[in-house]
Every structure is written in C-alpha cells, then in structure tokens.
C-alpha cells in the first residue's frame, strides 16, 4: 500500500449560504454568509461555524452532529428536503429554508415535535 495519499490534501473553498431568517412566514428575509470549507464538509458544519464566527443569533437545531441519527437538522436546501448533516457544502450559492407546511419556530427551526411532546 502507499502511505500518504495526495487525495487527502484538503483545499479550502467558499460557499455562499443564503439563509431564511424570521419567526413567521409573512415577515421573511434572507441573510447571506460566506463560509469557508474543505471538501466533504456538511451544510451543518458550515452553519455551526457560522454561529460561532459570524452570527450567534441564528437558530438551527441538531443533536447528533453529522451522524445522521437524530434527524433534527431537516431543512430545505436549494428547495429540496434534506438533512443538513449529510448534504455537502458546494462552492456556490446555496439557499437554506425552513421546512414547508410546519409552524416556524425561528429561522431554520420548525416545529417538528408531536403536540403531546411539547408545552
């Protein structure tokens, strides 16, 4: 076997995330953020970094962090229902919206809990 594989050398790229913000669907607006990433990073990686480095007030929801078991990070990515933890960042504009047909809690968080499991 070969020891060092040159394919493992990572290249930093930039994704432009257009993120839906708000607490109800009538007063929506989008904020745009540039996020640096390495090949293979997930949209959730980008959002977590964005909260630390740019905007701690952004609301996102996740628990398992890229293992795709908690299923909490579901959102619309470029119009498709996806898990942010397995969707990969791309070096282009990506649009992130909350799930449709569910009450908005805030930003990318929608009310996915059953009625009896919340106040």
């Amino acid at each position: 076997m070969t020891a060092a594989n040159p394919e493992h050398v990572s290249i930093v790229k930039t994704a432009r995330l257009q993120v839906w913000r708000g607490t109800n669907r009538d007063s929506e607006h989008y904020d745009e953020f540039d996020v640096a990433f390495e090949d293979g990073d997930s949209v959730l990686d980008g959002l977590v970094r964005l909260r630390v480095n740019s905007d701690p007030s952004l609301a996102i929801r996740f628990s398992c962090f890229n293992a795709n078991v908690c299923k909490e990070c579901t959102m619309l990515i470029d119009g498709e229902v996806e898990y942010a933890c397995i969707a990969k960042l791309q070096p282009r504009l990506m649009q992130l919206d909350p799930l449709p047909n569910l009450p908005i809690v805030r930003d990318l968080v929608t009310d996915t809990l059953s009625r009896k499991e919340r106040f």
Partner: protein
Amino acid sequence: MSDELILEGDVLVVGGGGAGMFAAVAAARNGASVFLLDRNVVGRGGATIMAQMTCASALGESEPDNPELHLEDTLGAGRGLCNENLATILCEGSPKRIRELEGWNVNWARSEDGKINQVKAPGHSRKRCVYVDFLSTGAAICAALRNKTSRDGKIRRLSNVTVTDLVLRDDAIAGAVGIDVPSSKPVKIKCSAVILCTGGMTKMFQRTTASNNLAGEGIGLALRAGARIIDIEFLQFYPNGHLAPRMVGLDPTTWEPTRVKLGGRLLNGKGEEFLDRYGVSGGGDYDTARDILTYAIYKEVEAGRGSPHGGVFLSFQHIEEQKLKDALGPVVDIFERNNINLTRQPVEIFPIAHYQMGGVEVDTDLSSSAPGLYAAGEIAGGANGANRLSGNALPEAMVFGERAGEKAAFYCTRNKTPRWDDKAAQPHVDLIRQTIGRNSGDGPSPGEMMSELKSLMWGKVGAFRNGPDLEMARERIRAMRQSELDALTIAPEASFNYGLVEWFELRNGLLAAEALASAAFARQESRGAHQRDDFPAADDQFMANQRMHLEGEELVSEFRNVRA
C-alpha cells in the same frame, strides 16, 4: 415575561437517552408519575442512539458464559478502581434487560441456528456482545424505548426543555427549574425525586464522538445540589476514531464495530505494523483494551511515524469485497457517498474523546449523597473504574436506568409530602429572565467560549497529561466560570434562543470541566484512561477513588480507599 410553565409530579428524569427512558419506564411501573425531559428530542439525543454495535451481556448463547465472568473482565479493565457492587449489578442485570428489549421488538442479530449472535469485543474473555444490524444497535434500542415511553399514561415526555438548576429544601430535592427552549419561558418542575441521565462531558473535547448535548451539565447540577462526584479524571479516548478523509452521515466510532466483525490492520504512516512495539501482539486481531491501543497510537504519531493528518492508517484492503459488503450492508453506501472505498484505500484514525468513566457518586440504589437525587447511565460514576470495558455502556444505561427508576419511585412513596419551595426556586427563575438579552452588543458569545474550551480540553486535558498543562487549564476554566461567563453576550430573542441554552450549558459544564482538570492534576500517577507524562507509572498510593464536592464556589477533593 410573567408567565412561567409549571409541572407537578413524583419523579423528574433529566435526559431522554437509554438510561433516561428506562428510568421513566421503571419509575412509572412502580407507581410514580414521571416527567421525562430532554434538551433535544426524547429518544433521539444523547449517546445511546449513537451506539453502533456492541452491548455486553452474559447470555451464553454463542458460548458458555455467566455474569461472574463478565464481572471479572469488567473489574480487570477498570484497573483496580471499580466499585465492585455497582459492577456486579451491571453484569448480573444485563441479560434481563436484553430479554426485555427483545420483548419490545428489538431484533438482536441471530446466527443461523436461531440463537442470538454474540461477538467478542476487546477486553472480553467470551463472545458476549449482542448487536442489531447494520451498526444500528443504539438506534433500535432508542426506537423501542421511544415507543414504550409514548404509550405509558404515567409518563409525560417533553422535548426541547433544558434543566438549569435543581431546587432543594433542607438539602433534599424539591424539584427543578429549566427553560422551554422554543419559548424561552422558565419551567418549574415540582417533584420528590430527580434522576440525572444526562450522559458525560465528552462534548467538551475538540475531537469527540459526543452528541451536541453531552456537555457535563448533569455533573454541574449535581455538584451545585451538594452531591459528590467520583473519579471524574477518567475519560476514555476511543482508539479507532475516524480522522480522515472527511466523512459525514456516520458516527466516527464506526471503525471499532467494523474491526470487531472483520479485523483490520493498523499501520503507521510508512505502512508498517507497529502495535508489537508497544507490547501488543497480533495486530490483525482485535482484542486489545482501549487504553493500551490509544497509548500505542499516540506514541507512534509522537515518534514522527504518523499518517498525513496526524493519525495512523486502518486498512481493510486485505479483505475481499464481498465479505466487506456482507458484514457492513448499507453502510458501504455511506462510505461510497464520502468517496471512501475500503478495498482500495485505508482510512486514517486517531483516538477521540468517547466516554466518561467517573461521575456522580451513587450507592447501589443509584442514589447520590443528596437525598432524592439519583443518577444513571454514563453520568453515574463507579462501575467502570479507570477504564470502561467495550460494550458495557449500553447495559449500564439500561440496568442502572431501570434500577434508578424503581428506587426513585420507592423514595417518592416514602416522601409524599410536597417539598417545593417557591422562595428557593425564585433566584433560578430570575437568572433565566436576566440572561435573555444580557450584555447586548459585540461581546463574545457562548459559542465562542465553548470553542475555546473544547480546544483547551483537547490540548491540555487530553489522553496524555502533565502537571503544568493541567494547572494552566484549571486556572483558565476557573476564570471563564467565575468572571468571563457573566460577560457573554446573549441575544434578546424570545423564541428558540439557543445562546440562552448555551449560556446555561456553560454554567454547569464549566464546573464539570474544572472538576475534570482539577482531579486529573491531583492524581499524580498513570492508570487506565488517565495517563500522566510526568508520572508514567501506576502508584499504589493512588489505588483509591477521588471524590469531589463543592464548598461555596470551590471544588474540594479527597482520595478514599476503593470500597468492595
């Protein structure tokens, strides 16, 4: 802002992983009314759901076995520091819980003769570990328990509620205060007993297998409530943690179960076998205890023989493609989506923070030193000593969770009179309200402090430690906890204000982190998962449990001989 939410019942279970859900089921079947709360979603957060494979249980289906042999292996792995009574309860109780889960539709993998298939995990003397294919043991257990807890009229589950303080009256539990995350409203929970099932503090480390909610908050809650903790310096680093190439959609622990099934060769950056340099025989087999394997990998990288990302290679290239597919099923597709082809390339691995052996000191009823406060699962200290045996975390969650639920229910029947004290709760409620919108402006956020803490813990309180680093870390954490925390900026938003949740996470988590750094400084020896470069050997004078409690704002430590 005047509105607050109120819950009133017998038992509050904090944390909805395997231990918490089992505790809720057991408390309810022993007559208690139960609230089961989780910061995230009950049954979907925490560590249990992340568990891919091994669950140790002396069922004796694959070969003759018994709980005494399981206990022997558990005590051996614990390097002399296990509480033997707790370890015995774990080993004896496991088969019953495995059968119970089977009755709740967990489909344990079976061999062709119809018996439950048991595999030999590292450190075990028998084929003892049961699992659910493919790599979905934890998910299957959680699904069964979610179902069970949702059908029980005595259990009320509430997700997205975080507990921030325990309320005491005359030093005994009277309830708790928390936050309903979607609305940021304070929640008062009036109850006779609290069972902490919040898991460990592995999130505090930069490289970790932890869910986002494992920040040691339960340790902070317990210390503030006057409970003692034990052996908190022992934190297990999982040797085969995924390092590179970047992989998402699968837990970074995935290589250990894969090795359990298939073997796999560990190679250094030059492609050489290296385990024999560290006294480990049979590099292709897989029975080396976790602490020893972690040591070998660290030292090989330190010697300049690491892989490109600073770990070692794990290769399955000698295994036929069909055999890989049979053993891993749909997991192969996840590798493919991440451009990983195991027949053509090795992956890089490096130890990763995985499990906290120490925790709240409990007796055989899982009761802490604070009356009415129980702890179960990873947060309960004692059963695993200085190093946990692979496969013992799931039975610990089930057995201790079930037992804590039963004992807490009994405690409630003996302590029926409501103890709730609004005066004692008020400062905790006020703190929540005062923290929303605190220090508006451009000051540092809780997320930034957590980032610093994670790199500090990884760099100074990691798998190999030394006195000056530990002292530096302890002082830095103390400064964060005692002054910088109050200067953090919190957004004013009322709905899903995650900065608010993170502030309280830090408030309790920093106390846990300081306890870990401080305890690691005080244990001047190397034993199990606690390795000191400046004290590289085990020392008999430290064949003792380290207990800690809070006096005012200060953590106080003492060593005590290991109890049988």
